[in-house]
């Protein structure tokens, strides 16, 4: 299988880290910025690092845009530059375009230009932090549909010491436990205490729920709410 090709334009914190992670995961990454210093910093970590102005269509053409699987526009400072780069990428045939947006107007313009995905890190993080503050028992939440979620929650006190079957999580709450994350205490060689995190995928009905367990469950929002109330 040939490696996927990524083009990252804009090497602020977001762009830099996306480029690094993609390379770590084995992808071919071209990283571009107008700031030579940023380009030099990232050069050892990516396939190719270029100091150039990506709003210049000729430059983008020189990168064989049709061979690029995903273009990531991570220009934070200038809405105009971000829009131009997105437009050129689209017109030059980059297969998929992801745009990091700074505000909702930016997001709407990018979507109109044909961006395949809009990322809005500040907004997403703000939502997560706020959700975490409102319901501290919910650690993570992935929306599958408006009704169904995959949720990570701390095992309700009522169920500690019971098996999954005894807790009747499936029969009474219509909720399936996909996995149990557990911190398992142990003694180090030097006699110090610590714990390691283990994950039990697809737990059995006879598996017991322990104090401190984190349940990864799938179910309806309303059912998860009911389950949570068992504190």
């Amino acid at each position, binding site marked *: 299988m040939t490696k996927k090709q990524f083009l990252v334009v804009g090497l602020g914190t977001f762009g830099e880290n996306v480029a690094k992670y993609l390379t770590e995961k084995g992808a071919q990454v071209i990283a571009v910025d107008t700031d030579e210093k940023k380009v030099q910093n990232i050069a050892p970590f990516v396939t190719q690092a270029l100091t150039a102005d990506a709003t210049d269509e000729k430059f983008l053409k020189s990168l064989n845009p049709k061979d690029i699987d995903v273009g990531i526009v991570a220009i934070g400072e200038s809405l105009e530059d971000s829009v131009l780069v997105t437009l050129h990428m689209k017109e030059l045939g980059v297969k998929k375009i992801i745009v990091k947006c700074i505000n909702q107007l930016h997001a709407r313009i990018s979507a109109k230009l044909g961006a395949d995905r809009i990322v809005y890190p500040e907004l997403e993080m703000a939502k997560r932090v706020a959700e975490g503050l409102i319901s501290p028992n919910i650690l993570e939440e992935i929306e599958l549909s408006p009704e169904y979620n995959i949720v990570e929650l701390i095992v309700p006190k009522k169920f500690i010491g019971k098996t999954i079957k005894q807790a009747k999580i499936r029969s009474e709450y219509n909720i399936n436990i996909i996995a149990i994350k557990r911190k398992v*205490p*142990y*003694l180090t060689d030097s006699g110090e*205490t*610590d*714990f390691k995190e283990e994950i039990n995928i697809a737990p059995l009905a006879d598996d017991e729920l*322990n*104090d*401190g367990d*984190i349940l990864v469950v799938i179910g309806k929002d309303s059912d998860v709410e009911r389950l949570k109330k068992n504190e």
Partner: protein
Amino acid sequence: MNKKKEISDKKETEESLIELGKFYFINGKYDKAIEEFKKAIELNPRNSETYYNLGLVYEAKNNIEEARKMYEKSVEIDPNNKLAKEHLEKIVGL
């Protein structure tokens, strides 16, 4: 009882309380472990190891706020407590 003996007895009791707390922790009896570590802290409020262990139990119970306080205390008393520092950094998100 002379003063020297009193101190050495106290030390011995503190150590056994910590050991008992660790025993409970290893066996997943988190609430009992907390009780023992708290008793040990009453005897000696300046032992970094006890706070680290108490932090560990709170973290295992997902009481992250209390865990953080305990790790902070542990590192404050002994800035070289590597394990406490590691857990604290992980909690804060460093």
